[in-house]
Structures are given as structure tokens and as C-alpha cells.
């Protein structure tokens, strides 16, 4: 047997669950310290003229899409998936998570109209609207219609959020 330098895969999974705290942070109560509840995550859409990227720290309504039947802040993400942490080898661990359902804006009875937009910001609405990730796609417009955003397959290689040893 040999020892191999690496972050532990279980640690990466625990990061996704808020299981470690290296520094102080102000948190909104998760009801219990020993069995905390899940946070609520939301997805907001942004116009092509917006600037959301790695520097984004929190949700902002600036340059967010707007429409009848769209509430500023976007839609709540369906989160029935538990983060997974798994090892492919002694040096290749990955932890990942993907929303468990598509995100739908508008409906046939409550359509939306969006000017050109090309990004979605995922953020933690429980913890001060703190930013999680930005995902871009081809510029779209919606006219009296519905916009559906389907998530990639939740796997070690395609999950929406993925932490991996390098």
C-alpha cells in the first residue's frame, strides 16, 4: 500500500452540506445546530447586458429580467437531490449536486415576456441571497410564453455543481 496526497472526497461532499467551518460567518438559523435544515436556493435570470460572473457575491435585481408573472428574484429551485461524494480512484474524488427538476418561468395560463437574456444566477435565498454559480446559454427572448431551464444529468462528470480533486 502507498499513501497518496489528496483532499478527502468525503470532505468535499461535506462542504456542499455546510459541514465544515474554517472561519467565522454570519448565518441565518437552520433551526438546529446538530440536524440543520436545508437552505432554499433560487434561480434568477439576467439580461444580456448584465454583468454576473465569478465576482458576483449576491443576488441583485440590477439587469434582471422583468415581466408580468415573473417575481424579482426568480424561481425556487427544487432540491430533492442529496449531494454525492464518490471516489473514482485513490487520487480522483468528486462531490456533486444538481437541482432535481427543471426550472420553469411562466405557464400557459400565466405567460412571461422577457427581453434578451442569457444567464441564470443560482443563489442561497436563506443565507442572505449569497451567490452560488452563474450559468450562461445562448441569448433567448420569450414572448407571451414559457421558458424552461433543464439541468444536466447529475453525475460525476456533468452535475451542475462539481468539486473535484485536481
Amino acid at each position, binding site marked *: 500500500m502507498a499513501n497518496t*496526497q*489528496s*483532499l478527502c472526497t468525503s470532505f*468535499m461532499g461535506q462542504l456542499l452540506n455546510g459541514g465544515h467551518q474554517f472561519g467565522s460567518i454570519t448565518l441565518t438559523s437552520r433551526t438546529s445546530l446538530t440536524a440543520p435544515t436545508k437552505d432554499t436556493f433560487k434561480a434568477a435570470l439576467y439580461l444580456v447586458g448584465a454583468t454576473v460572473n465569478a465576482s458576483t457575491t449576491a443576488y441583485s435585481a440590477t439587469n434582471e429580467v422583468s415581466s408580468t408573472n415573473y417575481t424579482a428574484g426568480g424561481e425556487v429551485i427544487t432540491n430533492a437531490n442529496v449531494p454525492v461524494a464518490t471516489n473514482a480512484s485513490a487520487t480522483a474524488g468528486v462531490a*456533486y449536486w444538481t437541482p432535481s427538476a427543471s426550472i420553469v418561468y411562466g405557464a*400557459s*395560463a400565466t*405567460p412571461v*415576456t422577457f427581453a434578451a437574456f442569457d444567464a441564470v444566477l443560482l443563489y442561497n435565498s436563506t443565507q442572505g441571497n449569497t451567490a452560488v*454559480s452563474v*450559468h*450562461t*446559454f*445562448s441569448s*433567448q*427572448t*420569450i*414572448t*407571451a*410564453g*414559457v*421558458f*424552461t*431551464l*433543464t*439541468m*444536466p444529468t447529475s453525475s460525476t*462528470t*456533468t*452535475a*451542475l*455543481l*462539481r*468539486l*473535484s*480533486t*485536481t
Partner: protein
Amino acid sequence: MITTTKGLMDEALLDKREGTIENDNETTTWVEYWLDGELVHRSAHVALKKSMFAGLEAASLG
């Protein structure tokens, strides 16, 4: 019947156009309905393919 900028309309009265965008990042489909040269409905479905990847590394001590 379909929702349009002019209210619910019979789909048969409208010119329907559809399209697809396929690349490494997404598969996107869209449908438009036009009335006398005016866009009155557009819906889109974006299916993301890619991960948002973050690498983590344990530093060497030696």
C-alpha cells in the same frame, strides 16, 4: 389555443416556426408563432449540458 400577445388564439390561424441550437454547452429548442408578420408568441427550452467545475488541491508539504 395558445397564449399570444393578443390573448388566446387558435394555433391554426398562426404561422408556426421552430428551431434548435445544439452545442457543447446546451441543447435549446424554441417555438414561435407569427400573425401577419408579427411575433405573438415565443417559448424556449434550454437544456444545460455542462458542469460548473471547481478543482480542489491539497498542497505538498515537502
